[in-house]
């Protein structure tokens, strides 16, 4: 699994390197993500994420806002974490990268009926609005809560949460 990832990333870097235009492999669309027992094996972007950017997305209210439900003890600067979901310390000891990617992409594929929002999904909502404006959004205008890059960044951040 890890080898496949690195190979894919390498292929990507090579591709962009040769093209010289910064164009990378096109990301997997929300409807095309392949889940296996809740896990998603391949990077949504074909590239590894950035754990530092991931930590910001995790903590930022206007982006991932994971902290509204989770705590991470190594981020003491993040104020008022929630306790709806389990603390994420040691998440990378409990789950593989593919499993974590699956949870962040669509937690309901791992935890049946989970309260955790599906961060990479664009269909199947009841009365969806434009952000927090209370105004209705047209189904074709719905974008996922996180971009593929942001998902990969968050996954990379979660992979740093090791205790063992």
């Amino acid at each position, binding site marked *: 699994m890890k080898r496949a990832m690195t190979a894919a990333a390498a292929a990507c870097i090579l591709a962009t390197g040769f093209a010289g235009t910064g164009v990378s492999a096109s990301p997997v669309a929300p409807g095309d993500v392949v889940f296996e*027992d*809740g896990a998603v094996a391949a990077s949504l972007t074909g590239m590894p994420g950035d754990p530092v950017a991931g930590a910001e997305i995790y903590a930022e*209210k206007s982006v991932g*806002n994971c*902290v*509204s*439900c989770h705590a991470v003890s190594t981020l003491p600067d993040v*104020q*008022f*974490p*929630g*306790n*709806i*979901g*389990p603390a994420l310390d040691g998440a990378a000891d*409990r*789950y593989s990268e593919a*499993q974590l990617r699956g949870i962040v992409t669509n937690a309901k594929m*791992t*935890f*049946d009926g989970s*309260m955790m*929002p*599906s961060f990479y999904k664009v269909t199947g*909502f*009841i*009365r*969806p*609005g434009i*952000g*927090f*404006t*209370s*105004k*209705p959004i047209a189904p074709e205008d*719905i974008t996922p*809560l996180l971009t593929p890059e942001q998902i990969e960044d968050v996954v990379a951040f979660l992979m740093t949460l090791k205790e063992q």
Partner: protein
Amino acid sequence: MKFWAYTALAGALAIAHAPLASAEMAEDELVINDDIEIVTKAPAPAHLGAFDEIYSGWLFRSEDTRDVQRDDFDNPGMLGVESAMEAWDSVEGTAGKACSDCHGALEDGQMVGVRAVYPKWNENAGEVWTLEQTINTCRTERMGAEAWGLNSKDMTNMSALMSYESRGIPMNVAIDGPAQETWEKGKEIYYTRYGQLELACSNCHEDHYGDWIRADHLSQGQTNAFPSYRLKDAALVSIQNRFKGCIRDTRGVPFDIGSPEFTALELYVASRGNGLSVEGPSVRN
């Protein structure tokens, strides 16, 4: 389900159903003005399978916020009540009548207990009405006055006066007979996961009351304390305006205030609190 999924799920369930009464909820009693005893904990009504005990949202607020509600001199919501007391005796509309012309002076106590049974089936209209809808019908049909906006300041103040008149009396809305169909509809709405975050009322107020959602301490989302003075908004907030905010927070589109959906939801949520005292105007953060 895979093993690791199962353990995580079991863990989450344990969190939700841990004895949070002691750990996360205030052990406190509410006696307003050293006089009116408020029931903030009661056995759950029989129709509510989810838990055994129901709690007022007051128990989930900080000590400072709880204290503001103990005394009417400190409670900013009382200004709304006082303003409605004036409106009660003021003639308005083409019929030349005030509320008091039909319902007597407030001291006569004809409004005592009214709040506790609303929303309520209205035989003439053939539907369930909220207290606000009933007040508006008095204005338009009996006073010849203009309807108030259901979420207007005048209306919320009058609604707060109705709560004030019933303070301490246990909520007791009827859910059977002609109201049953509306109640069922409200129950369905309560368990529907709205918006892009796909959250139902039950996700927050049934599965996770006592937990923290970021800086907010989740209560059971009871309606017995409305209208409620929100320190953050520096204003009295109506029940359905609170519902609107909660659905907006799911990245969803709320129903309109006064819509059949919100009236049904209000009846259902009120019935979950049957047994808790009316405590409006309450104070919340």
